[in-house]
């Protein structure tokens, strides 16, 4: 699926879940960064990006996700990802992203762990 779509799938207390579908390139990355900024500016502290419908993220999209990560760390929040394809998981591993962001196998686990460690 290459058509990009971003949905605010849930917002519960400090945690917001963004469901991402399609190719994360410069355009998709900008949309995510804009929405994330809005959520952090209005009080969200945990951002969970559910990538189950995303098969490819290019390096420009990655750089925009790093902007989201930087902003999240600035407000002492947590950026988390779940439901990664193996190739996206490998991309994140190459970048060393797990040092700064949390990665979960699925949304239920992510929400449970984020609530538990608040």
């Amino acid at each position, binding site marked *: 699926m290459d058509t990009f779509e971003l949905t605010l799938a849930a917002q519960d207390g400090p945690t917001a879940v963004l469901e991402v579908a399609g190719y994360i390139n410069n355009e998709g990355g900008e949309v995510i960064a804009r929405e994330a900024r809005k959520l952090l500016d209005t009080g969200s502290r945990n951002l969970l990006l559910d990538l189950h419908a995303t098969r490819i993220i*290019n390096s420009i999209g990655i750089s925009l996700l790093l902007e989201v990560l930087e902003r999240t760390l600035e407000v002492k929040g947590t950026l988390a990802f779940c439901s990664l394809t193996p190739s996206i998981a490998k991309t994140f591993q190459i970048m060393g992203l797990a040092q700064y962001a949390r990665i979960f196998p699925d949304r239920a686990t992510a929400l449970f762990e984020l609530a538990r460690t608040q």
Partner: protein
Amino acid sequence: MAEPVRLRLVLPQVARAELIAGDAVEKLGRRIAFPRDTLAEVKLAVVEACLNALEYGAGEVEVELAAHPNAARPWLEVVVTDHGPGFDPSGVARPVLEAKLHSKRKRGWGLELVRRLMDDVTITSRPGLTKVHMIRRTGGE
């Protein structure tokens, strides 16, 4: 040994042109029974090589794909060519996440991904001709 299946593409300078090459890799890889997850890694590496070529090259970008149907260990070979000003690959610093997080410039991951997702990568570059030659075997790293 069966002959490789070859495909040559010329990418136009249009949005998402890199995906044309990525999709071709996927189709060709399936023909030689490349595992899906490995193929997804090759697709990303090719998308990145094409993005660089489209951004820094001048005009069209050529992509040559070859699927080698070796029964025991099939392999994919991709060459991305552009005609831009060229660059010194040894002068491209490896990105470090911590430094990127504190830097205004967060880009610069493309070449690192290409190198880490493929088994062999050779870059030759001079003004007017840059070639990124990549190979991925099944069961590679």
